[in-house]
């Protein structure tokens, strides 16, 4: 057994480079200081700080939406909606607190809201079958990630996406999902157990088919 599945994998973390036209780069975002300083400047009404935040956080939030089996168009819509909400409630970020989970908590709220709306819309129209037949989901990101995360529950997918794909810490994930660190650890442990089983079965199948061929 290697490291605890809940521990952050440093190789999954990347500093985020902001566009060339921006006056700032955004390296080492996870140290948190840059992000938090930018948030304070954003609260003070600094548009350049807002621009840097938008350029640096949007790809991460977009990826977060995509990890939930969403089309690129839907993810872009939710991203815009998330930024509008972030803008509206930017005063609720408290200087000194980690900013990354704050962004994800709001993104998560928007995603859950979107999910509820879509469920209601489908239930109202009662055309679930037709939709699934006539409007196949737009291909997005790698199909492989979808296949890999398929056996996991919604909450497990969300936590794995934050922890392993976005490289957040357990504490950050716990804050973003309004749960305790213990509960996040438990979900990660269960998710890894499921993933191990699924990947194990898949590998065995591949090996057998290879052997037969």
């Amino acid at each position, binding site marked *: 057994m*290697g490291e605890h599945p809940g521990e952050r994998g440093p190789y999954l973390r990347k500093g985020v480079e902001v566009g060339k036209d921006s006056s700032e780069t955004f390296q080492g975002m996870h140290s948190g200081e840059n992000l938090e300083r930018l948030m304070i400047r954003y609260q003070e009404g600094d548009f350049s700080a807002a621009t840097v935040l938008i350029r640096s956080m*949007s790809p991460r939030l977009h990826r977060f939406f995509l990890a939930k089996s969403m089309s690129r168009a839907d993810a872009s819509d939710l991203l*815009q909606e998330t930024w509008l909400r972030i803008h509206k409630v930017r*005063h609720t*970020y408290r200087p000194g607190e980690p900013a990354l989970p704050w962004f994800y*908590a709001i993104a998560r709220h928007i995603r859950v809201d979107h999910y509820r*709306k879509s469920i209601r819309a489908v239930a109202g129209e009662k055309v679930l079958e037709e939709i699934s037949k006539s409007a196949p989901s737009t291909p997005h990101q790698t199909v492989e990630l979808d*296949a890999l995360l398929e056996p996991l529950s919604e909450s497990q997918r969300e936590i794995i996406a934050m922890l392993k794909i976005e490289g957040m810490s357990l504490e950050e994930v716990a804050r973003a999902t*309004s749960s305790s660190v213990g509960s996040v650890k438990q979900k990660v442990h269960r998710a890894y157990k499921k993933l191990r089983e699924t990947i194990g079965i898949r590998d065995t199948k591949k090996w057998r088919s290879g052997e037969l061929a």
Partner: protein
Amino acid sequence: MKNEHIDELLMKAAGEGQDVDPGVLERIGDSIKPSLRPVRPLPPGWLMAAGVVVVCAAVSLAGAARAGFSGLAKMNVLERSLIFPALGLLACLVAVSFVRQMIPASRVRVSPGGVLGLTSIALFAVFALLFRDYRTSHFISAGIICLLTGLLHAVPAGLLSWLVLRRGFAVDPVSAGMVGGTLAGLAGVGLLELHCPNFQATHILVWHIAVVPVSAAIGASFGWIARYRASSRG
């Protein structure tokens, strides 16, 4: 299979080439620019928690001042020195939890259901320890009056607490409503302890404590309605 292997697979599967359309980023920037003004961050959490505790205490005291302090007058020193500090302590803990529900990405140590459960159990323990009169005269009729009186005071306490925290943003309105309702319920219980002279154990254990879960359920319902309306608008 090792966890590192799964991590590698996840990273590989997440892949590259998921850049956001630059046009989208531009649109986001353009949409927030006109309304970009300096904003005042929320005050410290302890200050907001203190605010809601004061509001709840004020509602309880105001209610008792109108209805009478018959319960307080009938209590002995031990009962007074255990019940009111316990209520105060619980109100502080629940207020902190309520404030955290109103600030995105706050550290959550106990779930909203846990807050309600622990509050009810703590009240049950204190009341069971102090009250030993197990008669049940007028159990239903007196009980319903107390429940309604407690709830009638919990509602303004909840609304005023929400007013104190209105600048916050609840990412989960149902949970926030449940914790807010629990706090408001404590205000109702506070009033009943000050006012109600019925010291029958079953009356207090059932009807006084019932104010807390009923108020929490009302709070959660308000949260659900708020969430439904917000998502219907979108």
